[in-house]
C-alpha cells in the first residue's frame, strides 16, 4: 500500500529472513529425533531426491536406513507441520478480520472442534459413503461447516440480526463446548478401543499420522486457501473497519463473510482430519506477524502469518517428538502452553473493545 514510510521495507526484509529461517528449520528439524542424523546427510538426501531422482541412493552414497527415516518418515511429517502451521496461521488472521476481534481463531470459534467431531463420526460410526482418509476429511469438513453456520446464526440471533464481535466469540465458545461434548459422547458409545484411542489422540493434536499418502488433501486445501486469502486481503482490510464502514466502502459484507468462513472451514477441516485439534496457533501467529510488521495490513499479514505459523509448528512438533524420549507429547499441549499465556498477555496489553460491542 504505502511506499515511502518504511513499512514495506520492513516487509521486504521480513519475508526473505523468514523464508531462510523456514528452510534452515526444515533441515535442522529433520536432522533431530530419536536418531540424530548429520545436516550434510539430510541436505544430501533431500537434494538427491528432489533434483537428481534418487541417483545417490542407487549409487549407495548413503545408508538406506537414513533415507527411510529422512524421506519417508520425517520429511512428510515436517511438511505436514509446515502446512498445518501455515493453514492455521492464515485462518487465524482471516478470522480475526472477519469477526473484527483480535482474539479469534478457528479453535476459539469452534470450527476446529466441529471438524473434530465430524472426523470422530467417520471413525466411530458406520458411515456408508467413501472410505479411509477421504471419508474422515469430508466428515470433518461437514462438521466444520455445521459449526461455522451454527456460530454465525447463533451470533446473529443473539445480536438481534446484527453480528457483534462479542456475541460471535461467545457463540463460538458455546459451539466449541457442544462439539467437544459430541466427540466425547461418540467416544463413550464407541465399541472399539483402538478407535477410541485415535479419537482421544486427536483431541490433543498430533502430527504422527502424517505420511506421503495423507498429505495431498491438506496441501491442496492450504495452498488454495492461501491464494484465495491473499487475493482477498484488500477486502479483509475493509472488514477490519466494521460492517457499516465495509459496506459503505463497497463490500457485500454478508456474502463475503460467509464465503471466507467456508474457505477457512475447508482449510481447517483438511488439517484437523489428519492432525486433530491444535489450539491457539491461529490466535498467536497473526499477532506475532503484526508485532513484527507493526501493521495490520492483510496484504502482508496473511502471507506472513502463514510463514511464521509454519516455522512455529515445525519447532513445536520437533519439541513434541523429543521432549520425552519414551513417548511422544501431543503437540496441542505445547501450543496450549505457549498460546494460553499469550492470550492473557494480549488481554492485559490492550483493552479490547469490539467495534460494536
Amino acid at each position, binding site marked *: *500500500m504505502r511506499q515511502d514510510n518504511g513499512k514495506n521495507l520492513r516487509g521486504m526484509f521480513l519475508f526473505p529472513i523468514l523464508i531462510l529461517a523456514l528452510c534452515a528449520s526444515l533441515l535442522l528439524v529433520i536432522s533431530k529425533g530419536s536418531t540424530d542424523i548429520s545436516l550434510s546427510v539430510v541436505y544430501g538426501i533431500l537434494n538427491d531426491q528432489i533434483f537428481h531422482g534418487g541417483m545417490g541412493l542407487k549409487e549407495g552414497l548413503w545408508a538406506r536406513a537414513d533415507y527411510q527415516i529422512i524421506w519417508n518418515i520425517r520429511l512428510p511429517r515436517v511438511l505436514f507441520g509446515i502446512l498445518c502451521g501455515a493453514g492455521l496461521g492464515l485462518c487465524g488472521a482471516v478470522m480475526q478480520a472477519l469477526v473484527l476481534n*483480535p482474539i479469534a481463531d478457528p479453535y476459539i470459534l469452534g470450527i476446529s472442534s466441529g471438524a473434530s467431531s465430524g472426523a470422530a463420526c467417520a471413525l466411530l460410526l458406520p458411515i456408508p459413503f467413501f472410505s479411509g482418509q477421504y471419508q474422515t476429511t469430508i466428515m470433518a469438513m461437514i462438521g466444520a461447516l455445521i459449526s461455522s453456520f451454527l456460530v454465525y446464526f447463533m451470533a446473529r440471533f443473539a445480536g*438481534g440480526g446484527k453480528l457483534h464481535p462479542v456475541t460471535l466469540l461467545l457463540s463460538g465458545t458455546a459451539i466449541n463446548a457442544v462439539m467437544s461434548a459430541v466427540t466425547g459422547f461418540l467416544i463413550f458409545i464407541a465399541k472399539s478401543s483402538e478407535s477410541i484411542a485415535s479419537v482421544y489422540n486427536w483431541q490433543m493434536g498430533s502430527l504422527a499420522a502424517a505420511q506421503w499418502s495423507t498429505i495431498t488433501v491438506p496441501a491442496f486445501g492450504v495452498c488454495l486457501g492461501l491464494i484465495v486469502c491473499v487475493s482477498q486481503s*484488500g477486502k479483509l482490510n475493509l472488514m477490519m473497519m466494521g460492517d*457499516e*464502514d465495509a*459496506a459503505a*466502502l463497497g463490500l457485500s*459484507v454478508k456474502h463475503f463473510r460467509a464465503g471466507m468462513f467456508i474457505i477457512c472451514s475447508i482449510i481447517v477441516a483438511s488439517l484437523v482430519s489428519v492432525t486433530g485439534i491444535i489450539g491457539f496457533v491461529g490466535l498467536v501467529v497473526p499477532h506475532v506477524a503484526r508485532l513484527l510488521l507493526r501493521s495490520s*495490513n492483510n496484504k502482508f499479514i496473511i502471507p506472513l502469518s502463514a510463514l511464521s505459523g509454519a516455522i512455529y509448528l515445525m519447532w513445536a512438533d520437533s519439541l513434541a517428538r523429543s521432549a520425552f524420549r519414551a513417548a511422544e507429547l501431543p503437540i496441542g499441549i505445547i501450543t496450549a502452553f505457549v498460546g494460553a499465556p499469550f492470550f492473557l498477555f494480549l488481554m492485559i496489553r490492550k483493552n479490547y473493545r469490539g467495534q460494536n460491542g
Partner: protein
Amino acid sequence: MKIEFRDICVDAGGKKILHEVNLTAECGKMTGIIGPNGCGKSTLLKTTLGISPMEAGEILLDGASLAGFSNKKLAQLYGYVGQDSDCVFDFTAYEIVSMAAHIRGKTSKKSEKEIVMNSLEQLEIPHLKDRNIQSLSGGERKMVFIARAFAQGVDTIILDEPTNHLDIKHQLFILDILRKSKKTILIVLHDLRLAAHYCDTLYLMKQGKAVYSGSPSEVLQKDRVRQVFGVEGFASEKEDGTLDFHLQMN
C-alpha cells in the same frame, strides 16, 4: 446526486424506530437532520448502506431505487461517515484513507498516492499519515474518516454527527469544507447553532417521524423547538443575513 427517502419504516425488536419518514436531500445542498437522542436519525442514515432491513419504504438515488444497486456501485455514488467509525487494528491514517481509493476503479500506484494525499491535504492532516489510527485522538480519527469519504471521489457524502469529538475550531473547519465542496451533503447534527448556520434545509425528527421540514428559519421556530426538544430556543437572522440559534438557559 439527489437522495429521496420515501415512507421509510424500520422496526427493531418489535419497536418502531422509523415510521413513514419522507426526506429529500437536494443536489449540491446541505440537508441537516436534527432531533433528540433516540429519534431515529442514525437509523435513517444507515438505511442507505443496504445492510439493515427496512419494513417498508424506498430510497431513490436520482430517481433510481437504491435496492437495484450493488454495494460497490453505491460506494461509487456516495460516501458514508458513521457515528461509530473506528478501528481496533493497527492501520495508519494513510492506509485507512487508501481503502477508499479502489472505489474509483483501477488506479496506478501513483494516482492512489495522489488521491490519498489530496484528501489528507484537503482536511489539513497530511502530518498524520504515518500515525497509527489507534494513537490518534477522537477528533483526529474523525478527520481521517472524513478524508476517506473524500478519497472516494463522490459528489455526495452522508455524515452522522461528524462534529462529535471535534473542538469548536475543527467543527467549523469541517462544515466549511463540506459547504465549499458543493457536494450533496446529508448530515446529522446535534448543535442547532451549526445546523441553523450551515444547512440549506432541515428535517426535525421526533420519535421516528420527520415532524417538520423546511429552511432552518422555518424549522427552528420557538414553538417547534419547545415541542420537540423541550427547551426554549429559536433561530433568527443576523445582520449579515446568516442565521443564528438562540438558546435560553436558566
